[in-house]
């Protein structure tokens, strides 16, 4: 499903050169629920961003669903993300000026040929799935952290992506809400979505199929 070959990521700043990812060879299989763990600054987010085509590796290549996606143009990458990937972020990244409905609709706005009727049906159905049918016209500021993250999950799955990438999705939540979110993700995984999740929570990681450990930019076996 996702295949990284000899991926390196170097961050060049004035003073220092950081090797955030070092010779990563990694394969995520279809239907897998993988978690990435490691100390702060070890490169977890960088790895996830490279997998999600949000960032380009300095060297090496990324294949998703068998297609080589590195070296594609920005518009092609955007289109690819829109069709195949869903993202969940630690701090939700909802647009505060938009209602729950409009936030969830966002990915569909960048996709051609979906009628507003179909959009509405899809929005209502994903909101039901995350248990927020009663909050359609609320604004993010009127929601709890757990509810916000459920809106973010609804937004991530509205386009029916094959892959969901989540960077510390429970990082800003208490453990009860964290488990709720985790249950939702596991349900999505059961339905066939491939998920890669960065987490600091060992207990949550243990629930996933596979734990990928990173240290100082390198994979640890």
């Amino acid at each position, binding site marked *: 499903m996702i295949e990284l070959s000899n991926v390196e990521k170097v961050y060049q700043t004035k003073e220092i050169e950081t090797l955030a990812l070092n010779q990563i060879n990694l394969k995520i299989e279809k239907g897998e629920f993988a978690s990435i763990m490691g100390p702060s600054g070890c490169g977890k987010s960088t790895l996830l*961003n490279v997998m*999600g085509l*949000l*960032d380009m590796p300095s060297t090496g290549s990324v294949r998703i669903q068998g297609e080589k996606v590195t070296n594609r143009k*920005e*518009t092609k990458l*955007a*289109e690819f*993300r*829109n*069709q195949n*990937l*869903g*993202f969940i*972020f*630690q*701090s939700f*990244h*909802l*647009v*505060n*000026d938009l209602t729950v409905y409009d936030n969830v609709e*966002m*990915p569909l706005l*960048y*996709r051609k040929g979906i009628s507003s009727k179909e959009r509405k049906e899809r929005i209502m159905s994903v909101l039901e799935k995350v248990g927020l049918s009663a909050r359609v016209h609320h604004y993010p*500021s009127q929601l709890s952290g757990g509810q916000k993250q459920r809106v973010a999950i609804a*937004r991530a799955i509205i*386009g029916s992506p094959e892959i969901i990438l989540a*960077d510390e999705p429970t990082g800003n939540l208490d453990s009860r809400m964290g488990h709720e979110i985790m249950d939702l993700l596991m349900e999505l995984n059961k339905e066939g979505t491939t998920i890669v999740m960065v987490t600091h929570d060992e207990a949550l990681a243990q629930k996933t199929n596979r734990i990928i450990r990173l240290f100082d930019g390198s994979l640890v076996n």
Partner: protein
Amino acid sequence: MRRKLYAFVTLFGISLTLTLLFATTVFVDHIFASKGTESKFDRAIFAHTLRMTKRKTEDQSNNPFSYRFVRDYAYKMKTPELVAAYSGANLTNDLVYAYRNGKREPLTMRFTDGNYWQLVDLEFLEGRGYTLDEIEKDDKIVILDRKSREIYFNGEPCVGKTVQLKGVPFRVMGVVENVDAIRFSAYSNIWLPFTHTKHQEWGYFGHLQIAFLAHQQSDISKIQEEFADKLAKLDFSGTHFDSAYAKPKPATMDVWEKHDIYADSLGQFMEIEDVPYLLFGTVILMYLFLPGLNLISLNSTRIMERFPEIGARKSFGATTKHLAIQFMIENIMITLLGALIAGAATFIIIYLINDSGIFFNSQIAPGSRSFIVGIGSALILAILSGVTPSLKLAKTPIVKTLKNSTK
């Protein structure tokens, strides 16, 4: 909530900037445009000063023109449609004092020939202007404005009645609507035949300025040529000079000379007809530039607030182009809204200024020219302040927008 505050601050900034811009435009237009009582002035040129020199000794004298010069040279010119002579409305000299309710009211007097009444478009409330023939028959005649009619006749109709000016009786021939004091060639409270001036004439020197009205704007240079020709053929016998120089110039210069912004000496070194336009250009640019910068920074801070949104939109498939268009539309909308508010504010400001009379008692009316300039500069401002930040924002790499909000 934060976003709303930012939007409000931005809107406030834009409105304030545009109000400043609009109000300035209206003022500048009011001062320099040929309109109202000076509607013909865009095809008129004016000579204020005659410079006479004795070449050998470099003796030099600069003064307005005498009636003798006007009669013997200016009136005889063929190219102008009309030649009018009149004293400059000096706001401090040539005053007469009237008393009303025990209060001393200074009234400005202007001395004119008969053609003056065809040069300016004063609105007669009653009666009419005088002609040169009438001056020659009996020059104890006067035109009043509404204000002086108010003072001398309690606002009652007064054509044919007599008014005492400095102890001399004058017959009222007409009453005109009050004139904006900013109309330097038209403004006065009382108009009298040029024969009444207390100033002495001395050869070609006197107290008159001369206006030449061209049939059309393109004739102006022909008039200037003919005038130069007349000066070249000036009869110097009886004077102790042997050369004369004067150049009639368009009305925009009029204001500058009156305000002494332009020193006479400067005119000897360069053609400064273009200076006012240059100055305006610079002022307008400054006006655009400073708030433009201000708006760019305003927009940029507002934009930083939007990093999470950009991160999310881009992650889910928005391209740089999508976002640039989105931000640009938002910017134009907010600028237009600002322009609407600024337009309303400008009208209120102008109304207050007109009402209070603090600007020379002037009645400012925004014209179509200020409207066009106003809309134009609002658009430039929108583009200037919108495009750069919008593009910059839209181009921000996704990782940067994601990082900023998590750390």
